[in-house]
């Protein structure tokens, strides 16, 4: 295990201590619980946005708490859902009276715990709505989109919902925008190596050296094809085809692209991939409004990448272009 950590079981809490120490001007925790991260700059009257999920995916999930994005995040152990009581603590801490929108990935534990937290919030008179990220094309057939897992494309949902809330949108408006973004986002991943949960001490799944798995999930969930590692262009084609067919994305559409590194794949390679994405989209007459490339949703030191497309309309484009700033992600106003 090549990790710079102390005791494996202390990793998540020590990481949170480090994050809070480093960014005390922007982040705090609710109820003195490290695993309940909230913004230290709440905006009175704003619809509050909460997410949550297991650790090991930075900047997911807590990395998107900040100006123009989310207000709180409950943090689980590595690859484990946070508890409902933590989600509820975050909910109470961030609610400004305008209601709270939960945005989280479609994983059993998270879904159930957020449900439970919503019930608790309801009992205290806090209005809560939910939008569940389901962008991973590899994790479910067309027509059953609601069963799909949420992966890197949830960034788009956070971004537009965050901007809508910052602009004064109501809970219903923010929810509608988030739902639209989720409906119009599609992602496909490829993994080249496994990753190691610190407490386990060894990889919990296998990918042969020199192999790859198309469509593998960010916890090592089985993908749709295992095989020998191929050239970048061929990999991108294999990832893009199902994305483009699924929505479908068509000539004349305008999209935002996210090329996401899963952990140990360098940015050099992400741009080799984007080069192909660009060519394929151009050939199909799909316009590219903005490109994000880097690590947005990781699996610790997993090698691999994902490609996400978000189909834009004027509303989504406007919200995507608004500035945002967290300790992990910062964007100026786009198009200036």
């Amino acid at each position, binding site marked *: 295990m090549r990790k710079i950590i102390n005791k494996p079981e202390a990793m998540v809490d020590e990481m949170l201590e480090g994050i809070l120490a480093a960014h005390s001007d922007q982040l705090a925790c609710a109820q003195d619980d490290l695993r309940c991260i909230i913004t230290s700059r709440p905006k009175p009257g704003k619809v509050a946005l909460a997410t949550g999920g297991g650790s090991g995916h930075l900047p997911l999930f807590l990395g998107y708490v900040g100006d123009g994005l989310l207000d709180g995040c409950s943090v689980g152990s590595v690859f484990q*859902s946070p508890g*409902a009581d933590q989600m509820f603590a975050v909910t109470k801490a961030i609610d400004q009276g305008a209601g709270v929108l939960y945005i989280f990935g479609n994983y*059993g534990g998270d879904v159930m*715990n957020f449900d*439970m937290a919503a019930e608790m919030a309801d009992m205290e008179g806090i209005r809560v709505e939910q939008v569940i990220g389901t962008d991973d094309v590899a994790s479910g057939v067309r027509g059953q989109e609601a069963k799909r897992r949420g992966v890197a494309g949830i960034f788009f949902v956070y971004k537009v919902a965050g901007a809508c809330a910052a602009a004064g949108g109501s809970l219903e408006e923010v929810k509608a925008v988030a739902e639209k973004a989720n409906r119009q986002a599609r992602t496909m991943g490829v993994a080249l190596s496994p990753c190691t949960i610190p407490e386990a001490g060894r990889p919990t799944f296998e990918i042969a050296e020199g192999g790859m798995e198309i469509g593998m999930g960010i916890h090592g969930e*089985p993908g749709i094809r295992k095989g020998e590692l191929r050239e970048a262009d061929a990999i991108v084609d294999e990832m893009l085809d199902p994305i483009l067919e699924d929505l479908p994305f068509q000539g004349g559409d305008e999209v935002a692209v996210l090329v996401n590194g899963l952990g140990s794949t360098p940015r050099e390679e992400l741009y080799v991939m984007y080069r192909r994405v660009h060519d394929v989209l151009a050939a199909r007459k799909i316009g590219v409004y903005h490109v994000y490339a880097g690590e947005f949703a990781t699996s610790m030191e997993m090698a691999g990448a994902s490609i996400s497309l978000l189909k834009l309309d004027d509303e989504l484009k406007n919200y995507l272009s608004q500035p945002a700033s967290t300790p992990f992600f910062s964007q100026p106003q786009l198009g200036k």
Partner: protein
Amino acid sequence: MARITAEELRAIFAALSEIMEENKQYLVALDSAVGDGDLGLTMSQGFRSAAEFVDSMDETDVGIILARAGMTIASKAPSTMGTLMGTGFMKGGRAVQGRDFLGLDELTGFLEAFLEGIMERGRCRPGEKTVVDALQPALEALKAAGGQGLPLTEALDRAYEAAAAGLEKTKDMVAQHGRPAYYGEGSRGKEDPGAAVGVFLIKGLRQGLSA
């Protein structure tokens, strides 16, 4: 005739904690085959915390004890089964709130609410290869035993057999929920890890009662 008071609940949770501890590696192995392998860890930790909590509680309302134990499990074992077990105890406990003891009828009511809580939370039905497939036959067995006027201990013996048979049947099913569902057809032939926890739950209920 045996009945379940706060005292029996302490024994029941002690038994559950012990059973989960003893079967930690077994549950880890089941969960490793189709999931993330944490089931033994989360269950032993969750039920240990619940047992400690129940032991420390000065409360005679068995419904409240069960519901509070459920909240403890949910918060100490945040994995899927932790949430489901937590939900089950909370809903089941609320269904029998206000009582000092449970007889077979009340226990049946408890398990019915427990099961409904899980199905609602998990958005699942019997036959989808989950913990439900152990608990639902157990509930049927309790109902049947009630109809026959059997004593509580014997009813739980039958419920345990029914749960174990239900677990066996999960081998023929294809997982529809949670991590095991990622394996699709590949989950066939294997027992559902959560259903094994369901069997242990009934076993613990029985074991906490004398004779």
